[in-house]
């Protein structure tokens, strides 16, 4: 079997080739944002020095090139998640905007009093707040699926919370705190049976595992470029064509129109209806280059590599008595994210101390306060892996971990 050649891959990421606080930089904050390979950086550079124009608006060469680049990027995204048609791919700013668009535009149109919207308790704030608002506006009801001891949602919970009253289920494919891969096939099947539509927050999954929206039969699937080697400021909203057609525009202005009169306007067809104002072509170009890079390596190999890293890291972490790992122990139920706490040391101190060893991790509530409250943890530390992380990165992390308690005056 062909393994990932991580040493070669690492060379593509100039930012990783620096020392931090006197140590080799180990970047383990990929759940927050990822780094860019030189291929992505150069694609943007090339666009900016050869092809930049306002797409869809001009008949001159630069505008035509920009339009081509934009359309090519969209087609690349379509292929990547296997959407049926280009009309189903809408470029947004990020996952957060994608979810807000759906909650506002779909929610305002279709959610009625006493309808139920179901989330998982582990959702990111971006997949909670937009629903809280629409529920308040519409006098609807917000329900949560809770996790079992292993950090997962089980069948009983799905069947209890999703009912004939459910209008929308919105759930992350992978939890950004626990790394849990949720049983979204099961959720989607059951929700459809109950007559509900399902939005899948793919912010943490799309960068790391092969996603096929048709196979999943997701109604909406959303993700962010900056978590998958692409620039900030570009995100994706996939939606089934029939559904997208049935909902009104969200942001308005620019090219999303057909005819505009003083008092009213008609709207452009999909996907333009949802793309108001000048779009982020550079971001789209970067996203295309990022997908090229990922698929050139192979999503299956990336997944396998991360699984290896998680196994290796978990094994070492579990052997340290004062380290407490959160989330599923079963490697088939989790991706490359590990949340943990250290006895007697606050997660923020853990992250500051590790930083002094060149290791970048995150600490806090990870934009998932309801989950933290449910787990009765004020905060956790979190490491999250990507294709450029190595065994050595984890060794350095574990080494750092072993030093943490000493800095706060504990024997080990």
């Amino acid at each position, binding site marked *: 079997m062909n393994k990932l050649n991580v040493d070669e891959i690492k060379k593509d990421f100039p930012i990783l080739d620096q020392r931090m606080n006197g140590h080799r930089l180990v970047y383990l904050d990929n759940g927050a944002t990822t780094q860019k390979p030189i291929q992505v950086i150069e694609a943007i550079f090339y666009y900016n020095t050869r092809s930049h124009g306002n797409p869809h608006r001009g008949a001159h060469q630069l505008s035509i090139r920009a339009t081509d680049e934009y359309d090519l990027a969209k087609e690349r995204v379509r292929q990547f998640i296997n959407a049926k048609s280009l009309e189903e791919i809408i470029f947004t700013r990020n996952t957060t905007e994608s979810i807000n668009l759906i909650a506002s535009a779909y929610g305002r149109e279709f959610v009625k009093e006493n309808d139920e919207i179901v989330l998982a308790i582990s959702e990111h704030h971006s997949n909670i707040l937009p629903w809280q608002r629409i529920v308040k506006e519409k006098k609807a009801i917000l329900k949560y699926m809770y996790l079992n001891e292993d950090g997962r949602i089980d069948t009983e919970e799905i069947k209890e919370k999703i009912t004939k009253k459910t209008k929308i289920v919105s759930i992350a494919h992978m939890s950004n705190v626990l790394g849990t891969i949720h049983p979204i096939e099961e959720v989607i099947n059951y929700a459809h049976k109950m007559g509900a539509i399902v939005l899948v927050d793919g912010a943490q999954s799309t960068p790391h595992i092969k996603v096929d929206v048709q196979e999943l039969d997701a109604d909406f699937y959303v993700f962010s470029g900056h978590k998958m080697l692409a620039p900030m400021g570009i995100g994706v909203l996939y939606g089934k064509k029939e559904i997208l057609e049935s909902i009104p525009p969200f942001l308005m202005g620019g090219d999303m129109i057909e005819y505009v009169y003083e008092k009213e306007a008609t709207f452009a067809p999909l996907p333009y209806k949802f793309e108001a104002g000048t779009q982020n072509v550079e971001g789209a170009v970067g996203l295309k280059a990022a997908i090229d890079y990922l698929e050139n390596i192979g999503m299956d190999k990336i997944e396998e590599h991360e699984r290896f890293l998680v196994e290796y890291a978990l094994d070492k972490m579990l052997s340290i008595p004062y380290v407490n790992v959160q989330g599923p122990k079963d490697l088939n139920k989790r991706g490359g994210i590990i949340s943990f706490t250290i006895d007697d040391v606050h997660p923020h101190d853990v992250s500051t101390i590790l930083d002094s060893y060149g290791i970048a991790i995150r600490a806090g*509530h990870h934009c998932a306060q309801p989950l933290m409250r449910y787990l009765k943890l004020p905060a956790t530390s979190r490491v999250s892996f990507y294709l450029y992380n190595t065994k050595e990165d984890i060794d350095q992390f574990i080494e750092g971990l072993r030093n943490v308690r000493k800095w*706060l005056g504990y024997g080990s």
Partner: protein
Amino acid sequence: MDLNSIYTQLIMEHNKSGHNKRPLDNPDIIERGHNPSCGDDITLQLKIAEDIIEDASYTGVGCAISQASTSMMIDLIKSKSIDEALNLVQTFIGMIKKEIIDEEELEKLEDSIVLRNISNMPARVKCAVLAWHTLKEAISK
């Protein structure tokens, strides 16, 4: 960044000892201070008699820096007048912002002076100043 300049013996001890971490009986002032972004959440309790802070303590959760900073502040302000305490708060914030650098002036902060290096760690400044801002809220009312 030199970790030694942040996680000093003193901070370690204040963080671990918890000698100021307890509820007071019948406090005159109870003031909660919190940093939503990092989860530090403390409640200051003060006993005040004729403008003098007779006793002070805190409860709550947070990182070593916020806990130690709170504890050191409490050691410092006990038996001080409200005005003196407010002046100390100002000096401390001034030190962290690097607006006050005069050694002599900073000396009155006693132990808390060890937190000066936190200004080199922008992500942790909020932890260090939480207790002081909370005290200011409590006694300038």
